[in-house]
């Protein structure tokens, strides 16, 4: 009897899990399906799910109108670049806060997070002027700098919580053996925190990839990443859903595939230390 209850519960949870999973995945699936429709079928009521005339016309149109590779390259450079620089800055910072905290460490962490609470549009004009004067508008360098700074608080916070899980005694032992500070961070701390660092890195690449305020406002033609590519397919007068869906599918494909392959790392990192 008890066994059947367990099976039933298992079944319920499995179905519930799948239902929630499908619910969350549905918009992506729908975008994907819409990208193969004509503009007419894309807005048809009742909506057509699978039985329509599949066409590649939208992908053809998107390819012929924009330079997809240029946007992808920009996205990769900006998201990976800003994440790597962010990590290089955040690892020492998180080390300091986790292993030699002071009275004010919590305040510093809170202050860092508070910078995320301001709506970005509030600093648009000042930043735009700085970028103009330094010649950084529409450059990858400028975007890497901005995204590094924007995501830095999150990187520091995440790394800080991971580092807190590592016993300070191990680092002490390394120091006893004569390891310098640099060696301690590179050879002792980092290898132990790899799952945490990896998931921080992946999450930040995704955040930077999807960032659509600064990447749109500080770029024009040269440094525009995939967010600008998507924004060019919405039209105030004329139907655009199918083409927009094709552009969106192309824009999310690389990051989706990356997420797919690294999901083990991501999950491991996010649950790091949770069982202790």
């Amino acid at each position, binding site marked *: 009897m008890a066994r059947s209850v367990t099976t039933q519960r298992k079944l319920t949870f499995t179905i519930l899990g799948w239902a929630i999973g499908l619910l969350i995945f549905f918009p992506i699936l729908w975008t994907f399906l819409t990208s193969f429709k004509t*503009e*007419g079928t894309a*807005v*048809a*009521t009742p909506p057509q799910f699978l039985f329509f005339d599949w066409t590649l016309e939208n992908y053809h149109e998107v390819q012929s*109108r*924009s330079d997809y590779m240029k946007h992808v390259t920009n996205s990769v450079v900006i998201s990976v670049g800003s994440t790597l620089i962010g990590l290089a800055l955040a690892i020492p910072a998180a080390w300091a806060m986790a292993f030699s905290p002071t009275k004010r460490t919590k305040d510093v962490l809170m202050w860092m997070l508070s910078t995320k609470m301001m709506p970005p549009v509030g600093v*648009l*004009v000042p930043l*735009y*002027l700085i*970028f*103009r004067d*330094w*010649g*950084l*508008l*529409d*450059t990858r*360098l400028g975007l890497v700098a901005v995204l590094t700074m924007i995501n830095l608080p999150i990187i520091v916070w995440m790394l800080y919580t991971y580092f807190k899980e590592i016993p300070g005694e191990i680092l002490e032992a390394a120091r006893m053996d004569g390891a310098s500070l640099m060696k301690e961070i590179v050879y002792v701390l980092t290898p132990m925190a790899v799952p945490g660092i990896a998931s921080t890195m992946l999450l930040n690449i995704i955040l930077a990839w999807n960032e659509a305020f600064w990447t*749109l*406002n500080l770029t*024009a*033609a*040269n440094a*525009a990443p995939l967010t*600008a590519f998507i*924004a*060019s*397919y*919405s*039209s*105030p*007068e*004329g*139907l*655009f859903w199918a083409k927009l869906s094709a552009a969106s599918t192309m824009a999310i494909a690389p990051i989706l595939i990356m997420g797919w392959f690294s999901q083990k790392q991501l999950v491991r990192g996010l649950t790091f230390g949770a069982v202790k």
Partner: protein
Amino acid sequence: MLSRTLLLGAASVLAMSSFAHAETLTIATVNNGDMVRMQKLTEDFTKKNPDIQLEWVTLEENVLRQRVTTDIATKGGQYDVMTIGTYEVPIWAKQGWLLPLDGLGADYDKADLLPAIDAAVSVDGKLYASPFYGESAMVMYRTDLAEKAGVKISEKPTWDEIADAAKKMTDKSTETYGICLRGKAGWGENMALLTAMSNSFGGRWFDEKWQPQFDQPEWKKALTFYVDLMKEAGPPGASSNGFNENLALFQTGKCGIWIDATVAASFVTNPKDSKVADKVGYALFPTGGFENHGNWLWAWNLGIPAGTKKAEAAQKFVSWATDKAYTELVASKEGWANVPPGTRKSLYANPEYEKAAPFAKITLDAMNAANTTKPTVKPVPYTGGQFVAIPEFQGIGTAVGQQFSAALAGSMKVDQALQSAQALTTREMTKGGYIK
């Protein structure tokens, strides 16, 4: 210190690199059919001007507006040519943000521009942006449904005539709705229609002393009429419908009457997308007891920001994209039906265009009926038409649009919506220094 020098060095190298290709024009534009076509014809321009390269930045309308406004207000210099609406042109020209277009060449023929459009893009007789395509608003209706319902819509209908026809055409059992009007909140969405509608009912946004007029009977009449009509003969969920949603409804045969931008005619008569392509009739924007057809006028124009270092090349491009020869270029490549409409008299005098576009005459009539310098029946201190040409209008228009959208959705009464529109407009206009 070293790293700072390096960073500055890197920054200046990057800055220099943008000067290296001195004659690359960066053009910001919206993603509308006519603009996309222009982008595809780039080669014709670069062939004629081998020393000028074109770089396109296409963006969604709202993103584009935010983007180019930031750039021009800070003199960022990211763009050499900007696609801007008739709302921006007079405001930006007065700020000194746009270069007057006085070097467009002998072939440009300014006198050929439609007078209403010319007036909308000129300040003190000087052209500040060159119109690429223009539109007004008109009535589009299903001739077959009208016949079935036994109604006739005249060439210059009144709102009562439209309401009567819409009610008779409605058959909710077959999901056929007599009328589709914009309901989605936004200064360029529902407020475009409602401002034009109020103009035709004798209403105005402000009196001569900039006092908001939502407490006046004209606005109440217009809004009550709109909400009642939509309730009785409109589609469900109309408060989230904009141009594209109504276009989809009309194309799939679910609307009897659609009142919107004239450019819609080319979509609904295109048999590739529209099920009702051969059953569309047209009429002027309805009147409400005055000789006022709403004065809806919009054009997308090419302007040159004052901060550009490539003004000469930019003028060459603007001239290429908006002169008469461009029309012929599009016609030769894509047919007369795909020529950008609504800017030049010569296009409407062309018999080939009239043959390819059965809506040409009514479009011209609608555009000629619009007067942006005197948009309302009573006197007003502003120019415009379906919008008020002051910088504050984007914010106020959208906020008022939200009240009226709520009235349409039924979550607010008409009187309540008007009251809060009056209050918020008064507050913003006082803040803006218009009301002392």
